[in-house]
């Protein structure tokens, strides 16, 4: 656990620059030295790939940048280049991620360690270009690791960490680095950009054991019948379990090299002595921390678990971090139409077979880009305090405008 709000702040403010989130991520990708970048434009991801193509055009980044006919092809190109031993990068969001769906399973099943930024955005219909996290939460079962970031600096740092995790021979699993669309992709913040040489020391060249090579002809993507298919899935599952340690280890290695740490699987803020513990992912964490500061000043014992890693779902770490809470309120920007939402159902399941019996309530918040305010967080906290005495509503849509229904 980090101690509080300052642990993620850059140590050396002299190196900080005020840049757009998308530029900061593009710069981080450059420091990861991808061989091939393949992407299709979709708001709010576009600035990332525009910046990358400019870095290539200016000779600052030696990558092959491919403009393709669809998100489906964007990720498919990386299947070929990664199988040939190249480091690959893509970025997408929302409808684009949905269009990639079939390829997502293919990439993870073929154990291709691709890193992709997801600039989280709502899905249509109705068409909506603003931020929520329905896109990547909906893709929770596709076999990719998923890390959600709170701010631009964390997006930068997690991009570098992501390659190190994905390419580890024991993991060999693709990663989505999920950052809230517009809120983080289009914000200008002071950021310490990565140093190319330090990044190179941290992340060695990509050297996979098996590649497409005429000197050693191998078959990639054979079909597996019922006698072997289960074992392929089991191995992916086992790699995710190993990733629980690897993500924490890489976060600590990063801290040693760069001085910044955001938690590996999760982080906490005033959670240790809290009665009400909120849990959330992504940029809303910043708002929640502000709300907690205000509520703490009023004497309310409220804290936060910031979940970074949603896949693999860090069951043991969550049990440990939340064991002392009297009530838990999940604030998440997604909904599983038909049954609550991703994080709240996963969290309930994590506690079911334990002695821990903490009331858990869930809120679908910020859908389609609706602001989540400090006032909203206070309201959620009040509801959580009430739920401690008995749950009236297990799951609800925050800030629902009943007058327009």
């Amino acid at each position, binding site marked *: 656990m980090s101690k509080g709000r300052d642990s993620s702040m850059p140590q050396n403010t002299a190196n900080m620059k005020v840049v757009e989130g998308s530029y900061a991520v593009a710069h981080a990708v450059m420091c990861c030295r991808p*061989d*091939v970048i*393949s992407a299709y434009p979709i708001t709010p991801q576009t600035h990332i790939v525009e910046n990358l193509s400019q870095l290539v055009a200016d000779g600052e980044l030696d990558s*092959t940048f*491919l*403009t*393709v*006919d*669809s998100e*489906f*092809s964007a990720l*498919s*190109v*990386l*299947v*070929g*280049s*990664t*199988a*040939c*031993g*190249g480091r*690959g990068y893509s970025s997408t969001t929302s409808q684009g991620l949905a269009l990639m769906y*079939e*390829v997502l399973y*293919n990439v993870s099943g*073929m154990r291709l360690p691709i890193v992709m930024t997801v600039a989280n955005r709502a899905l249509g219909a109705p068409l909506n270009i603003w931020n929520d996290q329905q896109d990547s939460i909906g893709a929770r079962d596709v076999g990719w690791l998923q890390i959600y970031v709170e701010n631009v600096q964390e997006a930068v740092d997690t991009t570098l960490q992501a390659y190190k995790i994905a390419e580890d021979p024991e993991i060999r699993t693709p990663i989505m680095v999920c950052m809230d669309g517009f809120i983080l992709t289009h914000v200008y913040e002071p950021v310490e950009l990565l140093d190319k040489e330090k990044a190179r020391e941290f992340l060695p060249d990509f050297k996979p054991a098996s590649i*497409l*090579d*005429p000197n*050693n*002809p*191998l*078959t*990639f*993507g*054979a*079909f*597996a*019948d019922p006698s*072997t298919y289960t074992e392929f899935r089991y191995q992916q599952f086992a790699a995710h379990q190993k990733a629980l340690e690897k993500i924490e280890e890489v976060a600590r290695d990063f801290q040693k090299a760069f001085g910044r740490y955001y938690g590996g699987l999760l982080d906490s803020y005033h959670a240790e002595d809290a009665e009400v513990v909120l849990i959330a992912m992504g940029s809303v964490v910043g708002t929640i921390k502000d709300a907690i500061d205000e509520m703490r000043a009023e004497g309310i014992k409220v804290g936060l678990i910031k979940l970074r890693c949603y896949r693999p779902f860090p069951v043991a770490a969550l049990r440990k971090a939340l064991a002392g809470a009297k009530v838990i309120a999940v604030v998440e920007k997604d909904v599983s139409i038909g049954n609550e939402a991703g994080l709240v159902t996963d969290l309930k399941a994590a506690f079911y077979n334990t002695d821990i019996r903490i009331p858990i309530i869930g809120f679908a918040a910020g859908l389609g880009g609706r602001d989540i305010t400090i006032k909203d967080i206070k309201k959620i906290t009040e509801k959580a305090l009430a739920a401690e005495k008995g749950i009236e509503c297990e799951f609800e849509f925050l800030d629902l405008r009943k007058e327009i229904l």
Partner: protein
Amino acid sequence: MERSLLAPGHRACAGCAMPTTIRLVLDAAGPNTIVVSPTGCLEVTTTPFPESAWCVPWIHSLFENAAAVASGVEVMLKRRGQDTNVVVIGGDGSTFDIGMGSNSGMFERGHKVLYVCYDNEAYMNTGVQRSGSTPFCVHTTTTPSGSESLGNPRPKKDMPAIALAHGVPYVATASVAYPVDLRRKVKEALKTNGPSYIQVNAPCITGWTFDAGTMIELARLAVETGLWPLIEYVNGELVSVKKIRRPKPVEDYLRVQGRYKHLFKKADGGDILKQIKALADRNIAKFNLVD
């Protein structure tokens, strides 16, 4: 001939043109080749894990993305300065229909990739459903003949013309029945500095229903009737056609296939045969097949 780069023991049907086509393509391309294949009969008959019939590096990803995967392979080889052939081998369903977007992208980006379509004119792996490549009046399981139907109501999509419209510098048709021609075309295509497309007529015994021993004869008849012209375009110019001395009647080709059987039972079948003959005549005139 040296050892084939497609090992025996694959699971394709006896009388299938696909493995023969692959062998001819690999003979011409040689071992310094990476093959990308979409989902289909080829993939399920040659790569049941943990076995593989492929003696060159081979990758299958999905049904509709082989050209995109091949693009990724090609750019990585280029980055390394590695001079290795990149060849897609896929069926007509992936080529004409579901993979069209990915093919279009690969063509217009100009990757040095040879795309070989073994064209058996329907979705055979899933049980003989109509594809965009299925010819006029063919019986398939989704365009069945019946009292109100003469089979597929639409003509075959002109995929070589679509490739040409992209400015693909080498476009040819070929046939499993003309192995020397096919091998030459593969070699020509691989010399091309850019994308190339070869569409190979490849009869499917299950979908077309014919006597297994006559596969090559049947493919030859397609050429000799004018229904499958063997043509070759370089930089948009028609540079060669396989001449036909005396075109054979289209009935000779149609009558021996189960997929056309209904035409010979129908009262108005004769009219349809005339329309199919007109398609052959149009090819003969367009490509000047008969001297």
